[in-house]
């Protein structure tokens, strides 16, 4: 086998240019597959981490139907009123955090504009952490204060201790926060009551419920759902566990990954056809040599193995190079995303199964593409092959 492989390698080296071109065909396909699949993995990794941060014992109450328009910005700014005291009596309901996400008109030092504001209940930072990089966070019951995102603080030229006007009311900037993503750093955090007063509403746009220790998250979510229907008389709110949300997101990412992988797969198929073409040419070109090998005693199976190894090795070479290039592309993409969006939106990571899988698969693509040409070579009649000019 090793010796047949040596003959195969000789064959490949003999027509270097064509071998390389064929290998590049496979390389492109595998590069695309590896880059896209690993990018999907990076995204899933980042999503999983952010969900773990929030905790799987948290249930979200959002306006609208479950699944319908999940994640759309409108669902985040549609506000609703809710009897929090009654909600807290539902079995299994622990801490309740309230959020209201709106746009507000802000004026500071001559600059003004509309920015996103997040009104939060005092306890909200026990649900998710916000990193305070300057100043401090809110104190319980504190009013008329604001925490600015690093990005927007820079744009407005404000630091901790400064004041700004929100809807013509003065607020003290007590702290500056940074977030995982620069996208999330252009908002302003206010006490919920202040935001509600500014907008003249009692509403919230999202309620977070921590399930009390010892209670099942799914069951508690069902009880909350039942309570909401009983107290409101309609299903205008949806209750989602983090697990459900995570699942939806993972599924979406999975579909995206499969779709991209499929497109990349087409490139790989084209590469495979390139291998087949090259191998048919090689068989034709080396007809006489095949005849000679048969004359000196090669069995048909040995001829087939030589050609299968040739095509398989081209696949493997393309696969190895493609895997390297693909992970390099992924690394570049993740690095670029980090630089553009900040912090850790994506994580660079390439799994060993992807590497092995990609290489194994590319060898397989090569070998399968070589199957018919190898068969054609093995089936050649030695006398006719020797006579071939």
């Amino acid at each position, binding site marked *: 086998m090793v010796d047949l492989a040596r*003959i195969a390698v000789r064959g490949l080296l003999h027509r270097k240019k064509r071998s390389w071109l064929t290998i590049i065909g496979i390389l492109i396909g595998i590069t695309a597959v590896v880059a896209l699949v690993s990018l999907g993995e990076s995204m899933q990794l980042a999503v999983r981490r952010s969900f773990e941060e929030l905790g799987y014992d948290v249930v979200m109450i959002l306006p609208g139907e479950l699944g319908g328009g999940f994640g759309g910005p409108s669902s985040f700014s549609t506000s609703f009123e809710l009897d929090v005291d009654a909600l807290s009596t539902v079995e299994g309901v622990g801490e309740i955090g309230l959020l209201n996400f709106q746009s507000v008109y802000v004026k500071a030092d001559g600059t003004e504009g509309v920015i996103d504001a997040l009104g939060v209940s005092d306890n909200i930072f026990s649900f998710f952490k916000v990193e305070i990089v300057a100043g401090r966070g809110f104190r319980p019951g504190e009013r008329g204060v604001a925490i600015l995102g690093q990005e927007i603080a820079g744009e407005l030229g404000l630091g901790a201790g400064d004041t700004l006007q929100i809807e013509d009311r003065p607020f003290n900037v007590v702290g500056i926060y940074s977030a995982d993503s620069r996208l999330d750093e252009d908002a302003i955090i206010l006490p919920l009551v202040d935001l509600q007063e500014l907008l003249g509403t009692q509403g919230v746009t999202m309620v977070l419920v921590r399930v009390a220790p010892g209670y099942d998250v799914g069951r508690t979510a069902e009880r909350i759902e039942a309570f909401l229907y009983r107290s409101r008389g309609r299903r205008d709110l949806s209750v989602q566990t983090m697990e459900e949300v995570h699942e939806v997101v993972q599924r979406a990412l999975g579909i995206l990954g499969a779709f991209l992988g499929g497109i990349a797969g087409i490139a790989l198929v084209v590469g495979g056809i390139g291998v087949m073409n090259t191998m048919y040419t090689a068989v034709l070109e080396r007809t*006489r*040599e095949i005849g000679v090998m048969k*004359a*000196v*005693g*090669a069995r048909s199976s040995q001829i087939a193995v030589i050609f299968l190894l040739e095509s398989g090795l081209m696949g493997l070479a393309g696969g190895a190079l493609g895997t390297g290039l693909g992970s390099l592309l992924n690394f570049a993409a993740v690095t670029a995303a980090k630089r553009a969006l900040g912090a850790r939106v994506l994580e660079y990571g390439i799994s060993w199964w992807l590497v092995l899988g990609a290489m194994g698969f590319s060898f397989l693509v090569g070998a399968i593409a070589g199957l018919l040409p190898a068969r054609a070579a093995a089936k050649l009649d030695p006398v006719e092959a*020797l006579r071939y000019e």
Partner: protein
Amino acid sequence: MRGEAIVELEGVWKVYRMGRRRRIEVEALRGVYLRVERGEFLAVMGPSGSGKSTLLHLMGCLDRPTRGRVLFEGEDISSMRPATLARIRNRRVGFVFQSFNLAPTLTALGNVELPMIFAGVPRGERLRRARELLARVGLRERERHLPNELSGGEQQRVAIARALVNSPDLLLADEPTGNLDTETGREVLSLISGAHGGGVTVVVVTHDPEVAAAAVRALRIRDGRIVGGTDG
């Protein structure tokens, strides 16, 4: 007294189908009876297209007859599996062709190794024997050369080394000197004679009288039939 036969042809016909739809039938051999005895040096002479090469291919188990029987050491090759025929070609027969037919991607050494690779001989043993055979044909210094870096005579000497490397019983040469100048042809012929001297049965197909003269027995073939022969 008749010696032991290594190959026998009994009423052998070989009909090739040629052309685009394989409709044209060419009768390459038309009822050939021939007996090659162990240790013989036989020359088969005839013009081109007379069926000489076909005869050689059948004797070397490279092809099967359309009609009649080819017996290799008494066994009908038509009833043998392709793998068995490949094994006979590998271990018992050595081929030398007019156009040398070396694998262009392999060095002289690699070409001589080739039959042993298919025989499953371990690498160390292979190199030893290949070098020994190359030395015997005087090409020990040229082992790293590719065929296109060798002269015609050198290529044919590599081919002879390759044909002999698995110690065959039967050496079949198809116009071995046909592409060589007289002097080089003589060298090649003496290598073939040397093989015969070493106990190998040799059948040479040729239209070169000098080659035929080196043989112990000569036969004439014309239009697919043996038309006469001479002894000595």
